């Protein structure tokens, strides 16, 4: 990689890595796997950077690769073993909003991704659609269903938690 290319790549890396990592984490709910997926996406970006093919919007490209890879991983691991469920439970316990994390984790991976991009990254529906490779109406549907399911799960959690007044 030439010096100019290296500087450009590092700039993209430093400006996008943390944000991509956080979004991927919200899809996978596993820091180790999120780091792996994010690294993989940037390795692929770096390899293309060295080649002749120019990527017009490298930040969007790497985000798209990472998010789709995270969705695939999440889909594959939806049937969790008992051990990983326990590990997951421990990881959740360390999060500031445990109930929300559990509720979001209960959503299908594509809904999780849509929620993360729309509510966490604050991206418009059109951009979420591009990143997920689906239509805007599909994104709206994902968000609608996700909100409905989350409202249901959160109200169940409220019912389960005993009142503070004793």
């Amino acid at each position, binding site marked *: 990689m030439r010096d100019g290319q290296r500087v450009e790549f*590092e700039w993209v*890396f*430093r400006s996008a*890595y*943390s944000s991509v*990592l*956080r979004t991927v*984490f*919200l899809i996978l709910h596993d*820091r180790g796997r*999120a*780091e792996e997926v994010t*690294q993989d996406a*940037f*390795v*692929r970006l*770096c*390899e*293309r950077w*060295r*080649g*002749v*093919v120019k990527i017009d919007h490298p930040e969007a490209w790497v985000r*798209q*690769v990472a998010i*789709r*890879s995270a*969705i*695939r991983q999440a*889909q*594959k691991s939806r049937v969790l*073993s008992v051990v990983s469920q326990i590990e997951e439970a421990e990881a959740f316990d*360390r*999060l*500031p*909003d445990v109930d*929300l*994390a559990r509720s*979001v984790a209960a959503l299908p991976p594509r809904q999780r991704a849509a*929620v*993360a991009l729309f*509510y*966490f990254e604050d991206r418009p529906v059109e951009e979420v659609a591009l990143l997920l*490779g689906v239509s805007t109406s599909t994104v709206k549907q994902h968000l609608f269903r996700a*909100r409905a399911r*989350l*409202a249901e799960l*959160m109200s169940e959690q409220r019912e389960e938690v005993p009142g503070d007044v004793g």
Partner: protein
Amino acid sequence: MSVEQRLRAGLAANTVHLAPNLDHELAVLRRRVHRRHKVRRAAVAGAAGAVVAVGLVWLPSVVDSINGMDGLTDPAVEQTEPTPTATQLQPPQGLEPGTYAFKFIGQRADAAPRAVIELTSGAFRYDGALLSAGPNRAISLWTVAEVSVDPCYGTSREWVDPGETVAELAAALATQPLKNATAPVPVELGGYQGLYLETSLPPTGPDIADCVDRSVISWRADDGSLRRHALAGEVDRLWILDADGDRLVIDASHAPGISTDEIAELTTMVESITFTQVDQPGQ
């Protein structure tokens, strides 16, 4: 607090702890890229000395593997996998009638699914990567990582990442220079949804002999194996499937001029493909 307010506040709070050390991450990335680059260069050098000799005029050009061919398993008999390397290409094998589970080229050894193909009669040969259903026709199973920007210039020119979806790959293949292509149409195979399209090389000119290595290269698999063509008019019928997030490509290819019966036989073989998860970890 509404669900939306809770989401905006809670998602941000739940990611605050993720503050990666960017210098460290960048150093890790550089090491990984360097390692992959070295492995790829070594693999290309290894493949340069390897020749796939199938015994058919047309087939030797179909697959040019860098990291080796994928194995064949027969779920009814055993589940052992060869450990392929660039210099351990499998010799062509005659296959008895029976049911076979084939790995996709570039698919990881522990990945699922496998394509199950029932071979009822006739002579079938298998060279570790493609199933020949007779002279001048074959089926090969692929994972596609990159598509060549100009198939005539193959490995000496650039590659493009076709994205992660079935539609993106279909679009990339349908618009490749030099080749003719039909518009992708929805298809279902073995329970998986996807797109079907046909691509072909022009029957006459531009002269493939003028291309680098006298061949046209359409794509590269995840393990670096190349889909290579060397015959004017060669037709590829492609089923690109989304197998629960894994993108798989079934390529039924034939030389020009074979009979409609032979094409129909190839189609029937593909359409009878089912998928098995037998090699999935934990099963």
